[in-house]
């Protein structure tokens, strides 16, 4: 079976890869580009552990083919920090201990960052609905929600 040549941009860097038409964007990120931040939790778009941005839009990378990434701008959790300087969300997740096993964390960071870029002052209800597609089975959601709310407050103050 012939492979498809995909030219895309990941975290600002131009990237080319060859993929089978059945491979998802998640497969391509993890197996071809060694970007293993996005996780496969369910593989069916229910858990959000594979969340990435495509042209600024939050999506599950398990629900998109690698071939569909051609010409798109992909942003993953690996692009959130600025070198060694963590993103404010990452700092707050550490401060609040908003993770335990960490499998869901990359997806939640990507989703929360996408929310705060669209809405710098969300209500708690808005944060909870926005993150309803990111499942966490150990921390419980309170610390995560508090970390996002507090980050939003800090970022508003800083801006």
């Amino acid at each position: 079976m012939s492979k498809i040549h995909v030219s895309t941009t990941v975290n600002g860097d131009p990237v080319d890869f060859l993929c089978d038409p059945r491979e998802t964007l998640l497969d391509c990120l993890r197996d071809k580009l060694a970007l293993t931040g996005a996780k496969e939790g369910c593989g069916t778009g229910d858990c959000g552990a594979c969340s990435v941005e495509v042209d600024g839009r939050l999506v599950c990378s398990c629900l998109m083919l690698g071939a569909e990434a051609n010409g798109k701008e992909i942003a993953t959790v690996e692009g959130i920090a600025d070198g060694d300087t963590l993103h404010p969300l990452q700092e707050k997740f550490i401060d609040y201990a908003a993770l335990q096993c960490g499998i869901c964390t990359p997806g939640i960071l990507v989703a929360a960052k996408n929310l705060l870029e669209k809405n710098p002052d969300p209500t708690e209800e808005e944060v909870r609905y926005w993150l309803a597609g990111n499942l966490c089975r150990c921390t419980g959601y309170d610390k995560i929600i508090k970390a996002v709310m507090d980050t939003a407050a800090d970022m508003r103050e800083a801006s």
Partner: protein
Amino acid sequence: MRYHTPASFDDAIAIAAQAEGITRFLAGGTDVLVQLRSDLVTPDDLIDIKQIPGTHDIVQNADGSWTLGIAVSGAEMTEHAGLCAAWPGLVEGMDLIGSTQVQGRATLVGNLCNGSPAADSVPGMMAAGVTVTVMGPNGTREVAVEDIPAGPGRTNLAKGELIAAVNIPARGENGGDAYQRFIPRTEMDIAVVGVGVSLRLDGDIITEARVALGAVAPTALMVPDGAAALIGSTLDDAAKARLAAAASAACNPIDDKRGTIEFRTDVAGVLACRTAQRAYDRAQGKKVAKHV
């Protein structure tokens, strides 16, 4: 599996018409990829129609009607102030599907063609009188949304046919619509019952109404007796009682883990009245919050 990215609907139809094995059209992919990954459906030809010009556009026409491209996502609909103001019920039905991530990709046409009786966007489209433009090897036709589903997982589209656009009527004056569903959770679940209502008022009197039910029969249903119960009334208690009876009478549901036949039948009546009230309030220009 061959992956195609045709540049026109004619090319997409030609590929589908010549294909010998299983064909799937790909827009948002939120159902197609799940079926692919779980080995339920492995297409021989997967035809990605998102690169066709116009498929991402939300256009309001000169007569006030709307034309939506087949790749417009739920998130793009929810972010479109004009569309939300005109057809809040249609948009809220779409918006209830899945998570933020799913909203980033999922489409009205995908929800319709996946053929689930519980598809949340479908009763709202039916109530609004939405049609779809069907193109195929034998030409183009305009089909009412309620005539697309044939049963669970099946549509009335013929081989090589696809949906090329979604046509939403002009809202016009003194109109309102709403969609509500019952689920055991608050978010991210499949409808046990879904109700779409669209109506128009003259003063306090309902002059036009359309009522549609989801998840209570093999396909979403129009309920003409429910519409007749509303027309001529001010949505008083007697009209609501007639609407509830008509909605329950239209049900032909299954028993499953989400709800029994008896429960679905009863809830359809209750929810039809609540949804009609929301549509009525909107027609009167009152602000009605979504997700209630």
